[in-house]
């Protein structure tokens, strides 16, 4: 119903429309936020040098922020013509971005806490070109939803999904003829967050960066904290060392772990609150978020494949992460559609998205004993490199106490570890090809399985190093516009690589294989 209202609004004649007036509240606050850190730093710097601030500093900052907020609102306009979505910005340099309506691939809505308080949403419109997404920040929530429905509906009329596209071969649960129907089909729920998945949060290290950033920040401001001077520190150290060292270490460890679990779980809840993955109108829709709600739609014909990621820690507890590889959905094109969750859930949703079961679990053709040898050699060389590096401080800095046992220790500990990693990495190395999809297994630290539609392969790169040529192996890269834009098959026997490429993209290699 809100869709209908929105549609009426956006189908009004082709005059330039402003962003929502509530932007006048939003932008200055946002600009102030952006200015806050540099401004505070500058002010602190100034006040440290002279005593006291110049009286005009505060109004300047505030006025600047307001100006930066009001200007975009005054100068930004958007409209929909019969064929194009247009947006113009800029005061002196006017830029007009346009997107042909039939090229619109994704319409994403995002609302930060601030947006939500004001009833606004940010609209991002993606076309086939990855980097150029048109952003409207911000329009009212109803209008954003209407705009999305309108644009996606237009796109559907313009580009009917090709018959027999793999995603239509369905599990027979009723939405099999999805993209072709003109009436909006009911959305099918593919996955919703299950709070028992929270147990995977601490095993996903993505947020470690956040924690590191926090520690770094503390370190920076730490210098100015009054109690952090040398006297206090030595006192503190003496106090600490009066306990047993192992006790101190244990306390630090436990505190670190508790902090980590806290950060990980909080992050998980904030990011994936009320996560729903649905399919309808020929698109996948993902909505999630506690404070900032994101709503991402990807046209299914644009989804060229999926990637199942199992980082070491997550694998230990039987979890995984699932992403889609799509074209035209912003940088990288890899969209995580599930939080860290049990592997069977990832596999199930992956099968749903791909339209046929089994590709994420099927056995892969291994690359053979030579590939295994190269895997071992590569890991062993890494260890030797590390050993050489550890020689450097001994030679250059003349650190006598370090002694020669350091490189020896690196080798003794490293080599068995390298053998284990190499073997594990080889075990998961492999590929499989069916009439519509190429499946590739790859493992270094994380275990990856990538399934790519062969239709989405737009070229091949066959790379042979000097050592690989002696073994008759090659690295085969399938290039694609989706996801990370390439899929690597490492150390495939050369002839098999060529046969594989020839089968996957019939006709492309024919001139050179005959």
């Amino acid at each position, binding site marked *: 119903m809100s869709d209908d209202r929105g549609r009426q609004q956006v189908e009004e004649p082709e005059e330039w429309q402003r962003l929502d007036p509530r932007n006048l509240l939003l932008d200055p606050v946002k600009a102030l936020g952006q200015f806050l850190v540099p401004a505070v730093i500058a002010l602190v710097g100034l006040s440290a040098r002279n005593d006291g601030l110049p009286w005009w500093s505060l109004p300047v900052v505030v006025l600047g922020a307001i100006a930066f907020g009001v200007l975009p609102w005054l100068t930004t306009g958007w409209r929909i013509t019969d064929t194009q979505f247009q947006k113009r910005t800029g005061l002196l340099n006017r830029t007009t971005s346009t997107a042909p309506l039939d090229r619109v691939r994704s319409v994403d809505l995002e609302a930060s806490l601030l947006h939500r308080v004001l009833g606004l949403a940010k609209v991002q419109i993606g076309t*086939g070109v990855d980097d150029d997404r048109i952003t409207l920040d911000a329009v009212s929530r109803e209008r954003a939803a209407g705009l999305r429905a309108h644009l996606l509906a237009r796109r559907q009329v313009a580009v009917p999904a090709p018959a027999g596209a793999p995603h239509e071969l369905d599990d027979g649960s009723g939405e099999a003829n999805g993209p072709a129907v003109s009436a909006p089909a009911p959305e099918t729920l593919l996955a919703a967050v299950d709070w028992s998945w929270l147990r995977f949060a601490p095993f996903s290290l993505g947020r470690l960066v956040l924690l590191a950033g926090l520690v770094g920040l503390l370190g920076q401001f730490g210098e100015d904290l009054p109690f952090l001077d040398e006297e206090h520190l030595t006192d503190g150290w003496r106090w600490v060392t009066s306990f047993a060292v192992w006790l101190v270490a244990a306390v630090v460890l436990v505190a670190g772990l508790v902090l980590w679990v806290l950060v990980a779980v909080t992050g998980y809840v904030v990011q994936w609150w009320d996560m729903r993955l649905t399919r309808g109108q020929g698109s996948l829709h993902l909505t999630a978020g506690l404070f900032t709600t994101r709503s991402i739609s990807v046209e299914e014909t644009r989804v060229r494949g999926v990637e199942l990621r199992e980082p070491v820690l997550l694998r230990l507890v039987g979890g995984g992460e699932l992403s889609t590889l799509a074209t035209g959905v912003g940088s990288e094109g890899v969209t995580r559609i599930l939080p860290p969750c049990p592997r069977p859930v990832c596999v199930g949703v992956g099968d749903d998205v791909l339209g046929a079961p089994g590709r994420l679990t099927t056995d892969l053709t291994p690359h053979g004993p030579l590939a295994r040898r190269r895997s071992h050699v590569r890991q062993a060389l890494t260890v030797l490199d590390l050993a050489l590096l550890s020689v450097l401080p001994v030679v250059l800095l003349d650190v006598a106490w370090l002694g020669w046992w350091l490189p020896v220790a690196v080798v003794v500990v490293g080599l068995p570890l390298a053998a284990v990693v190499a073997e594990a990495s080889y075990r998961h190395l492999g590929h499989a090809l069916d009439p519509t999809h190429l499946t590739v297994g790859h493992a270094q630290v994380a275990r990856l399985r990538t399934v790519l539609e062969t239709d989405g392969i737009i070229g091949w*790169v066959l790379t042979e190093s000097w050592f690989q040529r002696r073994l008759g192996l090659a690295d085969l890269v399938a290039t694609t*516009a*989706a996801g990370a*834009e390439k899929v690597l098959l490492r150390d495939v026997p050369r002839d098999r690589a060529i046969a594989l490429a020839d089968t996957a993209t019939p006709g492309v290699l024919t001139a050179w294989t005959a």
Partner: protein
Amino acid sequence: MGAWKTRGMTQAPATPPPAGLREPAHQVSPRAVGYWRIAATIPSAVVAVLVVGGYVVWWLTEGRPSWWALVLAGLVLVVLVVYPVVMPPVRYRVHRWEVTDTAIHTRAGWITISSRIAPLSRVQTVDSRQGALMRLFRLASLTVTTASAAGPITIDCLDAEQARELVATLTAITGASEGDAT
């Protein structure tokens, strides 16, 4: 004009044809060897001068450098001399290209060799590039890009005239294909 074609196609294959995938038919302009040599000599010379200069300063101020430092410098100098001598002819023998009505195939490299193939229906842009030094040698490079950042295909150092014609041909072929090539 037809000269390059005959030359490219009649020349005996310098490396044995790999099983499975025939090598592309044409070689680039033979002037590429000279160009690559000059282009490699300039940075080599600069680095060599810097290294020798650094060592002379070291010798004058700190006394004779230790033996391993001298050996290291010697090795670096040998590499700097050998690279411009050895690389260009090898690279010339390896670098081959061919364009059919449906696909483009190149092979390039000298120690690590990569073959790149893309269907012309997926080609998005055809660029040619000619640096100042290349103009001196009447050479031009041609790059064909697809919608994948991993997939640009470059034919390095074609005869400039030939590059121009090839750009026209490729533009005509790719302009005719439908869709947005992703």
